[in-house]
């Protein structure tokens, strides 16, 4: 079954994928991770990618974020096709336009919180002083203004994820990809992190693509694309998905 996860209004599209395929390996041991995915993500939208392990979620956000080359199909992100612009331009594009939030936070433990947040600005050539000042400003917005000089290991999981979100936001990207942002957090902290991401998406006209297994955060999604075996098999809004899940039969 192939579900059309595209939208009709082309003016407001941040990510447009058509028939995207990706295969790992070759020969009999080849694994088809994506088998022709059609997906649109609107500007300002929070789209969640859900599905069982190995269904292709991470591969899809890797392709969307420009860190993995697709094998076939088309994929435009903010009007750019990475296959056409080449690796160097793709790297520059990521530096300017894409923010990342990782499951394991990926904060550099030997840098302070402010230095970690400042990294995307430094990559973009902003001076160190300016980058640290901007990082401190963003950290204040997420409630960590008093922890700028701490190292990440001194922070709780939720605080570390807020630092990671600050790092994803600091250079004002147009797209943020999040890989399991709440899986290492308890429920309450996960909720707060998602509230923050939701707020960010709404306030900055940002598109967010969030890969998650965590059904407790589905309510924060504008749309949820459910994947299985390298395809999008179901598309729903956050609320309708929750409702649908409640309607599932329970074995007694």
């Amino acid at each position, binding site marked *: 079954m192939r579900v059309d996860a595209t939208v009709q209004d082309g003016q407001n599209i941040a990510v447009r994928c058509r028939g995207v395929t990706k295969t790992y390996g070759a020969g009999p041991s080849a694994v088809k991770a994506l088998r022709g995915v059609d997906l649109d993500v609107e500007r300002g939208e929070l789209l969640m990618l859900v599905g069982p392990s190995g269904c292709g979620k991470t591969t899809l956000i*890797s392709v969307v974020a420009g*860190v*993995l080359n697709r094998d076939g199909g088309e994929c435009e992100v903010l009007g750019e096709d990475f296959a056409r612009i080449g690796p160097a331009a793709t790297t520059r594009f*990521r530096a300017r336009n894409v923010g990342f939030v*990782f499951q394991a936070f*990926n904060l550099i433990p*030997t*840098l302070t919180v402010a*230095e970690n947040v400042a990294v995307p600005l430094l990559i973009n050539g902003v001076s160190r002083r300016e980058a640290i000042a901007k990082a401190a400003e963003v950290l204040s917005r997420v409630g960590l203004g008093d922890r700028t000089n701490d190292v990440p290991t001194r922070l709780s999981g939720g605080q570390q994820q807020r630092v990671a979100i600050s790092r994803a936001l600091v250079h004002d990207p147009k797209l943020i990809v999040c890989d399991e942002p709440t899986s290492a957090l308890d429920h309450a902290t996960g909720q707060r992190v998602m509230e923050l991401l939701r707020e960010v998406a709404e306030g900055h006209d940002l598109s967010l693509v969030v890969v998650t297994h965590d059904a407790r955060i589905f309510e924060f999604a504008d749309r949820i694309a459910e994947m299985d075996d390298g395809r999008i098999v179901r598309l729903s809004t956050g609320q309708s998905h929750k409702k649908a899940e409640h309607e599932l039969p329970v074995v007694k």
Partner: protein
Amino acid sequence: MIPIALKMLFRDTSKFFGIVMGVTLASMVITWQGSIFIGIMSRTVAVISDMGDPDIWVMDPKVQYIDDVKPLITTDLYRVRGVEGVSWASPLYKGMTRARMEDGQFQNCNLLGLEDSTLTGGPPIMVEGRIEDLRRADGVIVDVIGATTRLAKRPREPGAAPTPLKVGDTMELNDHRAVVVGISRNIRTFQSQPVIYTTYSRATTFVPNERKMLSFILVKAAPGVAPAEVCDRIERATGLAAYTRDEFKGRTIDYFLKNTGIPINFGIAVALGFFVGTVITGFMFFSFTVDNLRYFGTLKAMGSGDGRLLGMILIQSLTVSLLGFGLGLGISAGMGAMTKDSALAFLMPWQLLVVALGATIVICMASAMLSIRRVVTLEPAIVFKG
């Protein structure tokens, strides 16, 4: 990104310490062994170095190095003096003699006979007495290291310190009485045998009489004439071999390099230091990079190009190489300073430092290459893998 690279390095204390220690070890072995090698080589030319005044050494064409004496006939001296561009020419006797001390002990010594009138080629520094005192009857000057070690009087009591030879003491050189009239400070010789200076005519009476006694002719080029040009003229006019001081040093060192096991032994030690340093540093640096691979991947995903990451690794590598080199050099130099007055041959010229710095940077760059390869081939998508 340079401060980020350096903070990643410095704040990973254990790895940073390990890498710097590896480089320090390599740098220390290279500079230490290199300094001793150069020290030993410099001792082979100690006699030439101590004689600063003559520009040119004239000798039999078959002579290969300073201790390979093939005597000349006395008339060669006059022929050399007649060559255009020669300011002056002096005879030098250089040979071995056996000294019999007052307590009956024997000791082989280097004997240098200087021209009676000018005393050309005399000791560079006098610790006691004057060079002119050689004109006193039976006078000899002994180098201070020989006077305090091999020529020192043995103690009567076991365990007591030997009494250094001093001005006024006597000894026998081939059954001829010799009186110490001065103590000089010389560069230690290769064989560490004492050096005894006397006049040319007295030296020829101290040693068994041979038909030819003239070992070398020391020449000063006339003002405004290049020593190399004078050498050519001497060779053309006399058929003798003539070398500038530096050429003769080079010839002597070359002989020792080609005909002794010294370079191989020291070369192996230096190569071992280089190899061990490379392995330790390479392993530690690679381990540091692998530990940080996730973060390099994160930086790559966030838009750091390969060039920028390569620059970060090179900066890290260069930093540890300079730190390790400085520490290794400091330890070597410190040990060298502490052993300054011992028999250890230790000489650390700036050229050695340049070579050692180059070797240290090569070690670190070679180590970094493994890491660079790993980072450059890293897929940024790794950041999404758990």
